[in-house]
């Protein structure tokens, strides 16, 4: 068993600051509720509902020699955002660990290597759940999250981020399913054989989902794997809506109207995914949450130091160190405006307005760039619940946001798979 959980200083600060505030009414459930009472109520809700994060790149950490998921890591020292003690601290009940393999050449050899590396990452997740079976369990079905929660364990689901390791072999989809994979992000930051990326600088290659990608979607439907459109371009989204017989997900994407980023989803896409019955999982990537204005003061301070620099090749080591320190001090003096939990809930508010409460969830992208002020790692996810309560969301609504919606989609995906099997059998 783990030692008594330690709350992160940031969370303590958050709570203390809140308690230290004037006895302000929240204007939500009760006009007399204080900040301290609101936080207490929020944490109770957070404890009661299933909290499920649909996207973490933690398998990348698992290939770090000596990295132990059972140990608590300091995110400010190591950059690590998820381990089992911090999931426990944050009352994060369930998580999808995404196996990610950097994309190589798209030929048989490249695909074969990617498959090997992807299977290794999946195996590392499975091995981790076995080694830590007192506190976590490998989850394969929607109900496993609730069953494991009742046992006091965290549910570990597996996803694949980028269909590249499928290569052009359809049978690989079933192999990954058998291993435990329950969603596949069709594409990542560059086009693959399945689909076009939102961020491929060479532009679209297939006009959305390729002919082979369409077969993969069909196979995912047949097996009961959720189709994830995050990272795909807009055409991939609309193709997935048309092709998939089951509702789709965006495992880590935000609202484009709130923050104009091509990885975020337009209002039309939000309306369409609502009609489809799918869900958009909000992510904690700062640039998808807020825009950063230029900082002329900082630029000027940097320019001033650079103007006094002598050629770098003429500098001594001591001079280089001093110069590095000067730049670090400027960066510390003029940090970019933080993305906060308020930005997160601004996006949730917007998606709820456009798509409805049944079509939004949480996919933090921890260990893949996710982590903002107040939700810096898995131990701080309760701050999302506190902000939701502050804005008047009810427990039933929070339950939907924190996992209910995703579980509903997951169940529908598996039901469609059963129907397809029955139809084929008859």
């Amino acid at each position, binding site marked *: 068993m783990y030692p008594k959980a330690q709350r992160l200083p940031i969370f303590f600060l958050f709570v203390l600051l809140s308690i230290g505030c004037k006895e302000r009414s929240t204007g939500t459930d009760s006009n007399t509720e204080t900040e301290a009472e609101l936080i207490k109520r929020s944490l109770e809700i957070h404890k009661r509902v299933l909290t499920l994060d649909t996207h973490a790149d933690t398998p990348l950490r698992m290939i*770090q020699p000596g990295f132990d998921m059972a140990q608590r890591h300091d995110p400010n020292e190591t950059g690590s955002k998820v381990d089992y003690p911090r999931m426990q601290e944050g009352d994060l009940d369930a998580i999808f660990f995404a196996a990610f393999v*950097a994309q190589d*050449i798209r030929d048989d050899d490249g695909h074969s290597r990617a498959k090997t*590396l992807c299977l290794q990452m999946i195996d590392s997740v499975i091995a981790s759940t076995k080694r830590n079976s007192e506190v976590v369990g490998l989850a394969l079905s929607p109900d496993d999250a609730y069953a494991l929660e009742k046992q006091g364990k965290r549910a570990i689901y597996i996803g694949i981020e980028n269909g590249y390791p499928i290569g052009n072999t359809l049978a690989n989809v079933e192999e990954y399913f058998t291993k435990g994979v329950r969603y596949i992000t069709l594409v990542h*930051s560059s086009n693959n054989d399945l689909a076009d990326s939102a961020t491929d600088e060479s532009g679209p290659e297939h006009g959305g989902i390729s002919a082979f990608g369409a077969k993969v979607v069909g196979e995912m439907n047949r097996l009961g794997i959720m189709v994830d459109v995050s990272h795909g371009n807009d055409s991939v989204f609309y193709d997935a809506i048309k092709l998939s017989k089951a509702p789709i997900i965006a495992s880590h994407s935000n609202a484009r109207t709130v923050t104009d980023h091509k*990885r975020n989803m337009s209002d039309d896409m939000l309306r369409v995914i609502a009609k489809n019955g799918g869900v958009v999982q909000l992510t904690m990537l*700062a640039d998808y949450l807020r825009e950063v204005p230029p900082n002329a003061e900082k630029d000027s301070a940097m320019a001033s130091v650079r103007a006094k620099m002598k050629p770098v090749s003429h500098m001594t080591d001591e001079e280089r160190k001093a110069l590095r320190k000067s730049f670090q001090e400027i960066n510390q003096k003029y940090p970019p405006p933080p993305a906060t939990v308020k930005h997160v809930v601004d996006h949730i508010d917007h998606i709820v307005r456009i798509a409805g409460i049944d079509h939004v969830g949480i996919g933090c992208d921890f260990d893949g760039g*996710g982590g903002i002020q107040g939700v810096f790692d898995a131990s701080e996810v309760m701050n999302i619940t506190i902000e939701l309560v502050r804005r008047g969301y009810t427990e039933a609504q929070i339950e939907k946001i924190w996992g209910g919606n995703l579980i509903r989609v997951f169940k529908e995906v598996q039901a469609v798979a059963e129907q397809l099997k029955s139809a084929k059998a008859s």
Partner: protein
Amino acid sequence: MIRLWIILWVVFLSEQAAVHPLRLSLCEIEYSSKKQLLSINLKLFLTDINEALVFDPNSKELAFCQPNESVKANEMLMNYVNRFFSVRANGKLVDLKIKSKKLSGEGENTALWVYFEFEHPLPLTSLEIKNAVFTDLFFDQNNIVYLHVDGKSNSMMLNKKTPVHRLKF
């Protein structure tokens, strides 16, 4: 021959880096006993290299792979790389000499690929890899290493806390 990574892998990394600095580099090491060849391909963000070498992520001073590339560019790059990256094959330090370089991507997503290749006639029995590039700049820098030894692939992530890993074959 080591394989070329497609350009847009970099987009993921830099996209993330721009969002919340997920600092990453990639290294691919391949050994073929048939060809008796050990090859190393380092993929580093140009902004990180410029930050490390000339204190300005957007500097054009070294102009890597451009017609006006600085005569000091390779020397400065290898002075830095040799401090933070090394490979020992069968216990012997591999002398890193650049065989080729190339740029991929655009703007903030530009990556510099640095390619090294060596003849290695003896059977490969062990590899020690140190990859701590940019850990002097960023506390959360992570460096992914993919190994392909005689058709068998493996991966690891090295960083400030765990900069070195040894493997036996």
